[in-house]
């Protein structure tokens, strides 16, 4: 029988939740890296026991951890003690250095400000090679490793896509979404908070903004600007990589041409503000969002935690409430904290800033908290294992 492994990053450590294919009984393992902010963990699609984790701290900076046994044990790639006294260490697994001239972006006061590395928000392992991973950084940039995380290099072409005009929002100028096109190894989509969505069609050498159709009348002086939109999350179903769904600061959007243009599909949502968005594993027109009241009040409308599902690719939405708190609930669900499994009956998972991880084994019809009272959840990923 298949198994499911849920990788949970929190403000104070990582947790690994496992269950069989029924997804009723869960084993909770953790905290791993107790006390550290674990922004994201994700397994390799081609070697599922290879898991990468972004471990970060305001005091001690960034670490990259790697497991080759499904999260039982971890190592910092290349960070082991040197075998010979006096020999220089080879590994630089936490060395993220912008390539070439550092350059500047727009700062809060309108001046230009140099890029400064702060942390890795998101790790996206290659679809074909367990040693290749992409990493989304704050300040926004895309890094990659081809040696299992020992060394990282920036793909600097991204920052040439009008990077001088990017300006951090209150949450920082982070590259938080990386989508690899399974049908085209040269195509990657990324999204940056308060800068927008970008696409490369040549493996990361050159990038272009793909924000046409986004409108930000309350955030930007030009609502239709080419860059500057606060994209919160983009999702795709791998079977249709040209169709993208986006949760923007306000507005839920869709693109049917790989981001060349976007249309709003917020429809009857009670609020079109939110952070995560995801797509059903087997129904590419079934999508999920978690509406949040507003940009000023980051909690569900009316104190009711509701996932909204559209089975029409947007516009028509239904509230999913069974098993979710419907009174006095004021948690948030962050952008990287929702995922789906690929079992026959698609499982949907999300974590909250209140420390609950909710799971549905029936495409969202019913929900259960599979763990409660963790630290605030930053990210949730799911692995479906044989």
């Amino acid at each position, binding site marked *: 029988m298949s198994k499911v492994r849920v990788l949970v990053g929190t403000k104070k450590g990582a947790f690994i939740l496992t269950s069989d294919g029924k997804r009723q009984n869960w084993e909770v393992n953790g905290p791993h890296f107790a006390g550290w902010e674990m922004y994201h963990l994700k397994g390799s699609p081609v070697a599922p026991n290879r898991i990468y984790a972004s471990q970060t701290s305001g*005091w*001690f900076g960034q670490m990259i951890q790697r497991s080759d046994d499904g999260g039982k044990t971890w190592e910092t790639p*290349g*960070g082991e*003690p040197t075998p010979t006294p006096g020999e220089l260490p080879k590994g630089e697994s936490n*060395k993220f250095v912008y390539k070439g001239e550092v350059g500047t972006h727009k700062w809060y006061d309108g001046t230009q400000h140099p890029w400064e590395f702060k942390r890795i928000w998101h790790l996206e392992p290659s679809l074909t090679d367990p040693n290749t991973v992409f990493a989304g950084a704050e300040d926004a940039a895309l890094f990659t490793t081809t040696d299992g995380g020992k060394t990282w290099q920036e793909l600097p072409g991204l920052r040439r896509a009008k990077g001088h005009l990017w300006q951090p929002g209150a949450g920082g100028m982070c590259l938080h979404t990386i989508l690899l096109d399974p049908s085209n190894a040269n195509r990657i989509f990324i999204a940056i908070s308060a800068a927008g969505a970008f696409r490369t069609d040549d493996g990361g050498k050159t990038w272009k903004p793909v924000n046409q159709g986004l409108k930000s009348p309350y955030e930007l002086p030009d609502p239709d600007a080419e860059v500057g939109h606060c994209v919160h999350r983009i999702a795709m179903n791998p079977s249709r990589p040209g169709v993208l769904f986006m949760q923007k600061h306000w507005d839920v959007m869709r693109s049917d041409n790989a981001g060349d243009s976007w249309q709003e599909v917020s429809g009857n949502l009670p609020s079109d503000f939110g952070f995560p968005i995801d797509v059903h594993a087997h129904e590419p027109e079934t999508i999920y969002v978690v509406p949040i009241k507003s940009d000023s009040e980051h909690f569900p409308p009316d104190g009711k935690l509701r996932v909204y599902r559209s089975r029409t690719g947007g516009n028509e939405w239904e509230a999913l409430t069974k098993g979710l708190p419907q009174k006095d609930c004021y948690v948030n669900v962050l952008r990287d904290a929702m995922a789906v499994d690929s079992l026959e009956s698609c499982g949907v998972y999300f974590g909250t800033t209140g420390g609950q991880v909710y799971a549905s084994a029936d495409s969202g019809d019913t929900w259960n908290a599979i763990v409660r009272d963790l630290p605030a959840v930053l990210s949730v990923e799911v692995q479906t294992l044989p």
Partner: protein
Amino acid sequence: MIRVVLPFHLRTLARVDGEVQLEAGSPVTLGSVLDALEARYPVLRGTIRDHVTLRRRPFVRFFASKEDLSFEPPETKLPDAVATGDEPFLIVGAMAGG
């Protein structure tokens, strides 16, 4: 032999218990101790000082013989009591406030 006390999270990262003991050459300076520490435990590179600039991370502090050496240059000699191992060199995570 220099005795170095690491903060909790760096002890965990380096997988050490208690103090770390290092040979740090002569004279024993702030920089030579950090060089020796990072050579022994490469995993600590970048966690105490920046990879490229070698500047101290903002919320890390260096204490020795009740003195704060955080703002001193790397060539600063450590006090004799630390250089001889009678007292430890402290690497400290700054107070978070609150």
